[in-house]
């Protein structure tokens, strides 16, 4: 018997990715989120072009939005207490937050996935050791961890990444471990074992690709948390060292004047919230789409 079926085109990875985006288009929520994120990405990439003033230049202090600059330009969002253009700082600040947000999340995932794969796949003592370490880390309040790590190693971009990785990897490890516990009992894993594949080959090639769905959704949510974290660290003065623009730092520097000059704190707050909202909406959209088929 021959099962005749119409010929299917070869499907490349890129085409599949496009198809995924096509599916997302059916989710309004997801598209809104993607739109917000795309907006900020473009802003970050085009910062040198878009920013009307140098971000660290002290021009006219404490101007309300719409105020005029000495050279005839307009401070669309006003200036801060030492005369820097808030719009320009927001635009440049998006670079910081997106760069460190993405790098920190990626590092946390790399560590979390390796830990989760090992714990879930090997089980036994490996699982117990990894899970124990993870539980110890998770038992600390996150904020305390951040403060300890940054104050010990000093405030810098690298240390933000280290701190976020340290605090988030255990959570990711738990998700991955749960997925692996299910996936490792599949017949295709047994088939790979019976042809003598190595453990890491099985984990990376046979198991991990099939765990990607929930992980992609989670990574979007986690990006949101990481952005909040970077904001909070900046607010606590543990972020990037001044004077480089950092949304959290901008709020911190001007918060004492928030009642008199609300524009100095409100706009950075809106920037953080919108980006976090964008990632959360995207995660919702992805989940919606992935549940549908």
């Amino acid at each position, binding site marked *: 018997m021959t099962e005749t079926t119409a010929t299917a085109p070869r499907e490349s990875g890129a085409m599949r990715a496009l198809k995924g985006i096509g599916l997302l288009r059916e989710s309004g929520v997801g598209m809104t989120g993607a739109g917000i994120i795309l907006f900020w990405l473009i802003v970050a990439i085009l910062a040198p072009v878009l920013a009307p003033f140098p971000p660290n230049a002290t021009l006219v202090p404490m101007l309300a939005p719409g105020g005029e600059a000495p050279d005839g330009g307009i401070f669309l969002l006003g200036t801060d207490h030492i005369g820097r253009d808030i719009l320009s700082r927001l635009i440049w600040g998006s670079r910081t937050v997106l760069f460190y947000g993405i790098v920190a999340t990626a590092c946390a995932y790399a560590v979390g996935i390796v830990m989760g794969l090992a714990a879930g796949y090997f089980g036994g003592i490996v699982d117990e050791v990894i899970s124990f370490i993870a539980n110890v880390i998770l038992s600390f309040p996150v904020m305390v961890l951040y403060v300890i790590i940054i104050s010990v190693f000093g405030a810098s971009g690298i240390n933000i990444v280290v701190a976020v990785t340290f605090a988030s990897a255990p959570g990711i490890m738990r998700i991955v471990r749960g997925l692996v516990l299910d996936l490792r009992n599949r017949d295709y894993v047994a088939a790979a074992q019976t042809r003598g594949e190595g453990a890491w080959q099985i984990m990376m090639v046979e198991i991990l*690709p099939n765990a990607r769905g929930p992980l992609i959704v989670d990574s979007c949510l986690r990006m949101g948390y990481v952005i909040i974290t970077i904001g909070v660290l900046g607010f606590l003065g543990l972020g990037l060292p001044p004077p480089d623009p950092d949304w959290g730092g901008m709020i911190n520097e001007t918060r004492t004047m928030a009642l008199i000059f609300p524009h100095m704190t409100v706009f950075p707050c809106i920037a953080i919230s919108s980006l976090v909202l964008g990632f959360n909406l995207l995660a919702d959209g992805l989940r919606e789409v992935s549940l549908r088929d």
Partner: protein
Amino acid sequence: MSNGQSGAGKPLLECNDLCISYFTRAGEIPAVKDFSLQLYPGESVGIVGESGCGKSTVAMAIMNYMGANGGIVGGSIVFDGRDMASLSPEELRQLRGGDIAMVYQEPMAALNPSLTIGKQLMEVPMFHENISATEAAARAKQMLADVNLPDPDRVMAAYPHQISGGQQQRVVISMALLSHPKLLLLDEPTTALDVTVEAGIVELIGEISAKFGTSMLYISHNMGLIKDTCDRVCVMYSGEVVEEGPIDTVFNAMSHPYTRGLFGAIPLPSADKRSHPLVAIRGQLPLPHERPRGCNFGPRCDFFDAGRCDAGDIPIVDGAHAMQRVRCVRWQEIDWASHRPDVTVRPEEPAGEEVLAVDEMRKYYTVHDRSIKAMLSGHSVRHVKANESITFNARKQETVAIVGESGCGKSTFAKVLTGLETATDGKIDFDGVDISHVPVHNRTPKQLGSLQMVFQNPNDTLNPSHTIGAQIGRVIKKFGVETEPAKIQQRVMQLLDAVKLPRDFMWRRPRQLSGGQKQRVGIARAFAGNPSMVIADEPVSALDVSVQAAVTDLLMDLQRENKTTLLFISHDLSVVRYLADRIVVMYLGQIMERGTTEQVFAPPYHPYTEALLSAVPIADTSVTKKRILLEGNLPSVLNPPTGCPFETRCPRKVGRICEEERPPVIEISAEHRIACHIPLEELAKAEPVIQVGKAAE
């Protein structure tokens, strides 16, 4: 079987030209077209068909429980003189579980795990008849006794997980019967159960209509079960009834090519892999939105007549026999007597030298009980005896079947053989080397390549993330059959040819394939490393009947071409009888009987083999079976009987010796062994369980 009073009085349930559609993003998908049925009081009608043919949709429509995206788009359902479409939600609520009750496939999912069974049962009469709790309890208890559950008091107080699957299904049936329904819908009620348990449920279902006068609509994919439970049968294919009529007519004088094909594809006792092989139906079921014009079966039919069969909708017309109806324009023209489907007759080939020798193999799992009680009593380590003293051998080019119900240890054995687990004790000689204690990562590539496996679940056997070509190619590369990418691709294409799949499937991903196609890829993958032995763990049990035969055939063809030894693990004795040369019957980790297929299927039997044979439903009205029903449940592997493992359920138990001593292995002939305390002379007196040719009861 009940005595239906077909044709007498007013029908209880009438479906007239019923059309049901599901509405999805892809548009309207017609699930059922033009379905008509009259069900008279006390009658049992079976609906038989493969997955996706719309049989469950019909049941849901009768309950008027279609979900948000389904709807009746044409025709009517009249139940007890009332049009179901005109009923209000409140009236429907009274009807469901009242006059119409349903039994589902998965008993564990039908019962609420957090309520005791008594509570769940009492709910029914308390809601439908407003009676007091004490009266409801008494009724529930009586009903549990009526469905032959031992110790109803204990069952009433138990939670669903505390009783076995078969008992759960009896509880679900008793729950359905508690409101004295006029109509009972049974949707694959025994599919999730073991054969010997299934036999008990089928017996019970047969008694119900006699005892309660309930009409039944029995939905199943298994022709044999329909034969045992129903008066009439509707055969559905791709959303339409293609043939209907009384059991005897449809089973012996079927007129539709699909029905004919279905019977040709199931391994009846008359089939034989050499002289009388199964005839597979070519092709596969069309998807609901890809149905052809005209006859849905057209593309798979040997009698397809372009211009007539694809001209337009085919009406269902009266057939040659009383109450028989056929949906085929050519049914009168087809000359079945002279129809010879082209089948390959396989010459018998003698088995070669011994490839596998298993000697006293044991596999125990250690279970650590970490409760404080266990620590105090010192019994913190217990053993699950998954395999106990397994001894048998397999020769080149031979098919050896391991048969047994769930929990008998057959899959554990496969794991030990492939090295995913190592044996606790004993020897497994494969190609002259003892591999019982060599885990998979210590085996040589040659050992790995020569011992490959075909898995049961088609949706699980292939990695959804990789293309078919990549997955087969990986095996070829891993076992060093070919190393150059171009040659690997060449070999992948050859393998796809061998399993009769189009070559461009190598670019596809598993989700673009049907179950049968996935299973073919799984077979191709197993044969990619030129194995000398293939273990097939229930390779066709998850497939549709019409596809099963094709996949079984393919497996046997590849086996013959490659001179491979096939170890076929199955619970289905009909399939095993058809393809195995030798059979090993296992129960609770131990071998009960082994011998050639003829020896196992003829007396002397082991009492368990006898019961197993009797339990298999056979879709042949000329077959009479001895009825042997097993009592009780499968004992826990954690706490197996000390003597004979089958002692707790054995209908021919001798006495104390069965409880205390392991049975001796009786050597009947060089091949045939039975482990039983009953002396051979006694065993030899048994009559054959399955007799072909006698008139139906």
